[in-house]
């Protein structure tokens, strides 16, 4: 069931990427909540695992002097949800982290693993999309930084080059300061479930009555997490009203490429996108100091 052919542990990033370069078959394992399930289902056979759990530099959350919030990929969901830095600066990300799995899973599952697994349903992804998060990637050849939108290539596929390791998640101050956000995880039950749809909305208001900026990140609305450019462009400068929000909801659907899967049909998902985008935006408006939009 767990046919582990080899197991390596790295203590530094350099050690890890060197090992990866030397053996392209290595599968990186952190919390293991995705990798072990893939092994159980036979999607990974005869795995050679590289554990990165001992790499201390990949843990933790910091706010840099310039206001950039950095999250180490080994940070667990529990740590993200409880982090004073996150709760104070980007509370919507703490909400998203808390919606994932159950306490036992959140205690071991890491945010880096959630991203690198490449699932459209990743509970952290839609919010990180809305935050324009950037990812720091390290290989023996050097480091590069890519926007999270470019990192997701397809279902279960991410832009990790050979021997590359995710080493940091960066959120710049201009992407969270002045914004309020709201995350809705829509699922069949309240815990231990994969999202039928994830909706993360950030908004910044002008004088409490105009949308200065709106960002919409959606999970499970397309093969990868997505943003809704048309809806966001429409929102800019519009007054905060029921009508504007209704239109934003409609436009959000345009960005989707929903599929019928066992969790829901395409039609139902599109209906949910329209409905829940409005709900999330209304909640975000309230948090941003705007009034209640009925």
């Amino acid at each position, binding site marked *: *069931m767990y*046919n582990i052919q080899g197991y390596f542990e790295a203590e530094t990033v350099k050690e890890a990427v060197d090992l990866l370069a030397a053996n392209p078959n290595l599968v990186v394992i952190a919390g293991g909540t995705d990798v072990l399930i893939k092994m159980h289902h036979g999607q990974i056979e005869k795995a050679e695992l590289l554990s990165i759990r001992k790499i201390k530099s990949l843990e933790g959350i910091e706010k840099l002097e310039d206001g950039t919030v950095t999250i180490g990929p080994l940070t667990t969901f529990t740590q993200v949800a409880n982090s004073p830095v996150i709760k104070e600066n980007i509370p919507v990300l703490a909400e998203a982290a808390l919606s994932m799995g*159950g306490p036992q899973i959140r205690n071991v599952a890491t945010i880096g693993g959630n991203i690198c697994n490449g699932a459209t349903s990743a509970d952290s992804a839609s919010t990180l999309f809305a935050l324009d998060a950037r990812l720091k990637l390290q290989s023996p050849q050097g480091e590069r930084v890519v926007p999270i939108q470019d990192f997701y290539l397809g279902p279960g596929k991410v832009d990790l080059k050979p021997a590359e390791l995710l080493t940091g998640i960066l959120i710049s101050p201009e992407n969270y300061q002045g914004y309020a956000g709201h995350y809705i995880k*829509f699922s*069949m*039950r*309240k*815990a*231990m*479930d*994969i999202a*039928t749809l994830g909706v993360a909305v950030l908004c910044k208001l002008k004088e409490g009555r105009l949308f200065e900026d709106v960002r919409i990140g959606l999970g499970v609305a397309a093969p990868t997490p997505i943003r809704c450019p048309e809806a966001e462009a429409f929102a800019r400068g519009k007054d905060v009203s029921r009508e504007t929000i209704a239109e934003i909801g409609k436009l959000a659907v345009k960005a989707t490429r929903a599929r*019928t*899967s*066992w*969790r*829901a*049909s*395409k*039609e*139902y998902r599109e*209906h*949910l996108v329209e*409905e*829940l985008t409005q709900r999330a935006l209304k909640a975000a408006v309230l948090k941003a100091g705007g009034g209640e939009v009925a």
Partner: protein
Amino acid sequence: MGVVSRPVPRVDAYEKVTGRAKFAADLYFPGMLYGKVLRSPHAHARIVKIDVSRAREVPGVHCVLTAADLPAARSWFTYLFLAEDEVRYTGDAVAMVAAEDPDAAEEALKAIEVVYEPLPGVFTIEEALEPGALQVQDYAPGNIVRNSHWPVRRGNVEEGFARSDVIIEREYRTPFIEHAYIEPEATVAVPDPVDGSVTVYGSVQNPYMTRRYVAAALGTALGKVRIIQQTLGGSFGGKEEVMGLMCGRAAVMAVKTGRPVKMVNTREESFVESAKRHPFRLRYKIGATREGRIMAFEAELVDEGGAYNSQAQFMNWRACVHSAGCYEIPNVKVDVYAVHTNNVYGGAMRGYSSPQVIFGQESLMDELAEALGMDPVELRRKNALRFGSVTITGQKLDDQPVNVLAVMERVLEEADYFNRREEYTRQREKGGPRRRGIGMAVSYRGCGLGAETADATGGLVSVQEDGSVIIRSGLTDNGQGLSTSHAQIVAEELGIPLSKVVYQRVDTSTMPDGGMTVASRGTYTGGRAMLLAARKVKEIIFRGAAELLSCRPEELASSDGLIFCSSDPSKKVSFEEAVRHCLFRGETLTQLGWVVPPELPWDRPTGQGKAFPTYMYSCVVAEVEVDTETGQVEVLRVTAGHDVGRAINPALAAGQIYGGIVMGMGMALMEEVELHKGVILNPNFDSYTIPTSLDMPEMKPLLLESEDPVGPFHAKSLGEPAMECVAAAIVNAVAHATGRRVRSLPANLEKVLLGKTLARS
């Protein structure tokens, strides 16, 4: 201080909460091998060829067996240990291996070459019933499960409908549902090299039934097979056929290799092979006068038995008895029957048809009320069974309390039903996306096995010289708390502290076969046998005590470990002393209590007779909030009241009610085994969703007591009633909230929002 009627801690609480309890998968024996089974990927196929030669070469493998290698029977009843020439569902096994470790066993399975010729199959009730449909089993013409047809004929429905002012016809559906016990099936079979016997430890619900499978597979005498039940991580009716097959296979490999063989299912294997709740297609026609008096009830209830079935034959009898609910109806025509398909087989699951049947019939009552323009409670009040009423099977209820209305009114009051109903109706008229609704359902349920089969069982009470007492039952503790309730009954009767009673798990070599632990008969029937055994022991001990106290035995009473003279409590002797006195004289203080129920007459062609000696009554009120923009249903509050006769242990009884509510909620809103051409698409809990602790509603259990003439200390059944009305009440509440009725379970998001499922078109 009495022991019965008190919420004493479970006798097995300590071992369970400290993790010391040994489940079958926790057992290890020297030299133990690990068994694995190769199952068919096809729902229906001919086996052209099986080649196991490469599998036998895998290092660490001790045996690889196909049907041709089996020493005796290839099947028990019709369930196959190993399929020989044809597979009829995707759980059918074609080969099995035993190896030094699980990896080697897996490796060997991969090395087995099977050539199948896939065949067309039947996958729905409609396909099964189509004229000329493929026959799933040769012995079942028309795909009707043998012996599964149970009719009820009472009065004349044509006349009844002619005298009705309002007649409605409806169809409801329920899906396959998984038991979802937390412990997947596990067993270890240990061969005895000396006498050729086998001891099988396992997660079995019915050890004596399992013993039949094992003896058949080995071709040996029942006496040479010993089944010992390990601590069970839930069963709910599920660990029956699948455990018989698993234990049979393990025993064959154990005898073949001369080594203990352990088999443990993965969750996926458990989903694929094990029985499910039978799906039902429930068709009704019901007629009533303008005043709401039901005049006629006609029903055709068809359940899907799957590829094999040994339950519909019995279960459908219960379905026919309870088909019309707890109402007095003069004209009734009911037909219940099951069909075979190439899907997973239906088995026993908590309720044994009643949750499905009640969902249909109590939805129908609400729809009839709506058609009559009448309050649904009023309609039920008008037609409910009362003392002296005659049931649809012709049983006159004049020898027991009939508490439909008492239970219903009490639960409605506790739930503040009428105020809330009015308030939510008002809110609904105002509109808005979130709508609340309140709904209810009532039921009655025959206690024990009734006329289905002899409800006989035994209890053994053995008093030791130090005053401690060993008790044994042929019925099992499946987690429901039978060991505690039996211990309480014995302690109460003997007047000793509960701590003196030691429960020993079922071992088929130590007790006579007392039937299966089903039909909510653990306390109701099993408890009576225990009480009887305790009484027999007590009689002997009191005779001894009377000698010591120089009084007559009839004058004695006992409590807290003392036996005393009722008229003069200062004349007393300790229980231990009286016990020693008896044993010294050569008496035996080991007694078997055996209860044999009175015979209940039943006429099969008309479905008339005395179905059960007594009935218990339930009412559940559910409140929901429906998000009409997303279809999401939140269950806010459930009030559940049950006429339990008397609760032996109120805490355990409440536990049954809580569990029943959550299980019923899963059935109502989310649970469905999804199949495509016989392949189960959601074989684990990531995709087969059951409610979690965060989804649980506020729950109010009400234990309503009455004087039952039959059960021990007046106790009646509760395990199954605790869940049987819940789904119906929730769906009725959803209909109240939305004004739209879901007639096919589960009432999941899409069905509630759009009225249809789009997911798999």
